[in-house]
């Protein structure tokens, strides 16, 4: 074992041990958050594992309260609400992912070009971002839904467009920061092409904070997506989607409290969990934004 290796061993050994049981137990909220997210992941990928009921067919009495047989009770058509929530997960999760990817890709691209090219390109692009910042995201989404039409995918795209501004700003400020560093300046003297500098040096270094922002946007995107489908712009029934399940329950607030409350609780728990994880990622990586 060389000297360097032994130094490494000393340096790395405690770091490897740290995420051990003790450290995890110190953050019970984070553990819970991961469990919730894991459940959501399983429900999205393999809904059949979590429930044996059919989400679309009548499986019990109408408006039966929650019980061992029907965890979340049944709805006005006698459909098992838990099964509907579980089978609706895929659509909600898919919408959230589309929304974040749209915001991430388009926003990062705008921020990258604005920060890297600079001058009038920066000015023009940032004025566009000013417009996106000036209009509340929900209204941007509504305008896009008016143009694109209804449906969960359209909602997702609309929410993603509403999120472009924050990604663009974070990416731009990161690019500006990295552009000013000595190693990027050195590439100019080394005669390396601008595109290569961009892809090999600037982008990888700017990616971290932007990705952390993406994790933060997951929870917020779920809030926006479910709010828009609650307003009735999602895929029409009988397809179960979280926001529209809450909307379906609002006519039965008195007769069947579970119909609106429990799907809403699932949304709230998922957003809380996603935000909790994002915040710890944010802190661990000490992102600069």
């Amino acid at each position, binding site marked *: 074992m060389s000297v360097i290796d032994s130094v490494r061993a000393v340096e790395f050994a405690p770091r490897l041990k740290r995420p051990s049981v003790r450290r995890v137990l110190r953050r019970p909220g984070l553990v819970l958050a991961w469990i919730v997210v894991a459940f959501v992941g399983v429900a999205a990928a393999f809904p059949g594992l979590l429930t044996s009921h059919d989400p679309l067919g009548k499986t019990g009495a109408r408006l039966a309260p929650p019980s061992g047989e029907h965890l979340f009770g049944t709805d006005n058509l006698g459909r098992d609400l838990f099964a509907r929530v579980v089978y609706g997960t895929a659509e909600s999760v898919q919408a959230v992912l589309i929304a974040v990817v749209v915001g991430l890709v388009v926003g990062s691209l705008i921020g990258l070009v604005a920060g890297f090219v600079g001058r009038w390109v920066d000015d023009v692009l940032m004025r566009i971002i000013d*417009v996106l910042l*000036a209009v509340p995201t929900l209204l941007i989404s*509504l305008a896009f839904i008016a143009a694109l039409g209804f449906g969960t995918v359209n909602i997702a795209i609309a929410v993603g467009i509403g999120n472009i501004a924050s990604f663009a700003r974070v990416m731009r400020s990161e690019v500006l920061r990295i552009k000013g560093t000595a190693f990027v300046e050195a590439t100019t003297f080394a005669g390396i092409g601008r595109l290569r500098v961009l892809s090999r040096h600037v982008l990888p270094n700017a990616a971290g904070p932007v990705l952390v922002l993406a994790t933060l946007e997951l*929870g917020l995107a779920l809030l926006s997506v479910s709010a828009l489908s609650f*307003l009735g712009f999602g895929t029409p029934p009988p397809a179960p989607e979280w926001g529209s399940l*809450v909307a379906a329950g609002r006519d039965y607030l008195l007769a069947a409290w579970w119909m609106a409350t429990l799907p809403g609780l699932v949304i*709230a728990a998922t957003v809380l969990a996603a935000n909790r994880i994002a915040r710890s990622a944010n802190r661990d990586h000490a992102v600069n934004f």
Partner: protein
Amino acid sequence: MLRYATRRLLHALLVLWATFTATFFLLYVLPGDAALSKAGVGSDGAALNAADLDRVRAELGLDQPALIQYLKALGNALRGDFGTSIQTGSPATRMYAEAVPETLKLAGSALLVGLAVGIAWALLATYTRRNLLRQALLALPAAGVSLPTFWIGLILLQFFSFRWQLLPAIGNEGVQSLILPALVLAIPTASMSAQILSRSLELTMRAPYIETARARGASRGRVLLGHATRNSIIPVVTALGMTAGHLIGGSVVMESVFSRAGVGAITVRAVNFQDTPVVLVAVVFAALVFVTVNLLVDLLYPLIDPRIRLRRAPLERPVGARRPAAQRPVAAPEATA
């Protein structure tokens, strides 16, 4: 000062113009056929013949090139005419303007409640010396921005209106109908301002002048209220434009949950009917509110903090102000030492 104000005003007008332009092209040029939806409303499912469609197109000016349409619309918009609503046939601007007071009541009371609760919350969290209480007070606002407002609204509706019958469930009648929606709408505002202010206070309380004030015998409460708060409040004021935007967006949802009349309800109906003139008004109005609040805020800074020399970049907002969960300590605006 005058030059500064003029520049800000010009920038605000530029943002408004760009918002109008972007939304116009999004709504009028991108999608299919406004004539179809217009003709569709009248004939109610009856087969449309081509001549009818052409007539409606000519009526709406849709047979002209996009650029001509845009220039005409811009000229009209400058005179306050955004076209007529496809649903009702009345001017979109008037239809919208008539609903503004109701939403203003809702958003205004939510803003007041939200700011008051948020500021008190942050002060309490900073004041208390009990670590557990402080942790709890600081953790709750993060949860507050994670809760779907439509869900909270429905739960409160269930208890206060249906079970206990204390407050009306729907409508705009009286102060009682305002209580629930305003409270729910205030939650995100309160959470956001509590987060921003407590971060800002945390930084301020470490400043040397705070220590000096304490050393001279001022109590913790006095230092907090008399010295720290005024210096820490600026990020909250900076975020007011964002807050106003959030409130407009939030009132769309609240007016739906509580079946209230207002601009939110009108916007939702307009999107449902693809009533593009009204949607255009809604978007431009939201931008107008944002831009106006920001102009006011910019003029307000020197009153709060005389150190501020007016040299800040136009509309530069901390990213975190829009995304409360990501809020990082907000640097105090440029000050000359």
